[in-house]
């Protein structure tokens, strides 16, 4: 009887748990899983709920009134769109960088050696749709390389693109560097002058009720920017923001 009572009290602490909803880009899936767990470990009474999806899809959900506290976007344009719409309450902070690479199935069966191979007629090439950040980054890469490849598919998000590369259905695709950390596919290095860096931005959403000096939403963002948070991101292949 006593142990039951103890158990019950352990399960329902006196202070009611605070839950924050963190909307994060799909390329942050693994990194923010660890981030949320580590953050919850530093707080006694905060739960983090992750909502993962394409950055632009999450932006539309927030504009449609989704209950988000924090938004972490895989490019700045998406975040700026939300700021312009008055949906962001804090100054967006750049918290990570990523780069695009060429991904090929394990062993590189098609023998891709450089970006110019993307114009080869015999290769099946995939990129992300230009509407999503990884597609915008790929377009930027093609512009830098002065290349106009004709892709065979424009996948709706980076994860579905990577899956088709891993499966060997696509010979080569343009993905984020960080996506390759937990992937079976290989990468083809790009020369220095073709480095496309993307910035990840994080901010508190205007409709959030967990804001203010002690609000969990601000605490979470501070944690992401802290050395511990940055170490987690680095482990998942994301770079530190370039300090100005």
């Amino acid at each position: 009887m006593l142990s039951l009572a103890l158990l019950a009290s352990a399960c329902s602490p006196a202070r009611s748990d605070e839950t924050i909803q963190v909307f994060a880009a799909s390329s942050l899936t693994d990194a923010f899983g660890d981030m949320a767990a580590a953050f919850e470990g530093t707080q006694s009474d905060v739960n983090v709920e992750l909502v993962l999806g394409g950055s632009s899809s999450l932006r539309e959900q927030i504009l449609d009134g989704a209950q988000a506290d924090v938004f972490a976007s895989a490019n700045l344009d998406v975040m700026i769109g939300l700021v312009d719409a008055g949906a962001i309450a804090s100054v967006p902070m750049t918290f990570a960088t990523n780069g695009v690479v060429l991904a090929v199935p394990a062993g590189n069966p098609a023998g891709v050696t450089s970006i110019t191979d993307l114009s080869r007629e015999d290769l099946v090439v995939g990129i992300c749709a230009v509407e999503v950040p990884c597609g915008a980054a790929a377009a930027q890469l093609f512009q830098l390389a002065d290349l106009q490849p004709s892709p065979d598919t424009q996948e709706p998000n980076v994860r579905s693109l990577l899956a088709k590369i891993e499966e060997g259905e696509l010979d080569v695709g343009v993905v984020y560097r960080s996506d390759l950390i937990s992937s079976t596919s290989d990468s083809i290095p790009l020369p220095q002058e073709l480095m496309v860096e993307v910035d990840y931005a994080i901010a508190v959403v205007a409709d959030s009720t967990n804001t203010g000096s002690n609000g969990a939403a601000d605490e979470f963002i501070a944690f992401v920017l802290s050395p511990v948070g940055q170490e987690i991101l680095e482990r998942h292949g994301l770079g530190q923001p370039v300090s100005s």
Partner: protein
Amino acid sequence: MTRQLRSIKSAPPVLVAAAALAVAFFVVPLLGLLWRVPWTDLPEILGRPVVRDALVLSLLSSLAAAALSTILGVPLAWLLARVELRGRSLIRAIVTLPMVLPPVVGGAALLFAFGRRGLVGGGLEDVTGLLLPFSTAGVVMANTFVALPFLVVTVEGGFRNLDPRFEAAAASLGASPLEVFRRVTLPMIRPSIVAGIVLAWARALGEFGATITFAGNLQGRTQTLPLAVFVALESDRDEAVAMSLVLVVISVAVLVGLRDRWWRT
């Protein structure tokens, strides 16, 4: 056939209320869509290449899938309804599986079978040079995969409800089995075949999951209207809504065109 219809006043209010709720369940989302339609910009949006390409591809691939379903499905339905067959229920279960399977699972299964690294896809590419994933043929295939069961189930019902004595009479007058099938059976179950084709076509027109998984997404080649709507929802709401309206209008037009069958009161 005459039917006795009662006055709505004498109908149990609970049933009427539930039925009204069911109607509202379909009408309210439709109004939600119409409410968001950018009417003034509509002509400009519908003239955009991405919208036109998707519309053309959707019409072509769904019609091709309906035709393929008819050619393959009618004989199969006849076999299931009329021929003593070992493992008939197993065959029927396999054929109707795509009706309950999530389309994305169907698309993945197609990829594992007909993809370049798939069970038979690699050999097919070596022999014929035909690459199904990321091609319009792949779209038609994904559409047929989900649409064919609707035709088979509908037409099999038609065969079952047909009195076999008509066929027996024709046969006794000297018609060959194929002649009986062509000149007696098919004309008599015409309504079922038409209904089956329309259902299969409608299912193909709305196909999304199997298509994007198996055939990918490329404007002009594999991007059908539902795929274009999905991508546009993330970037251009007006465009997405305009294309959704096109899908609704096409579907309603077909239902009205078939009012003899379904709108008869």
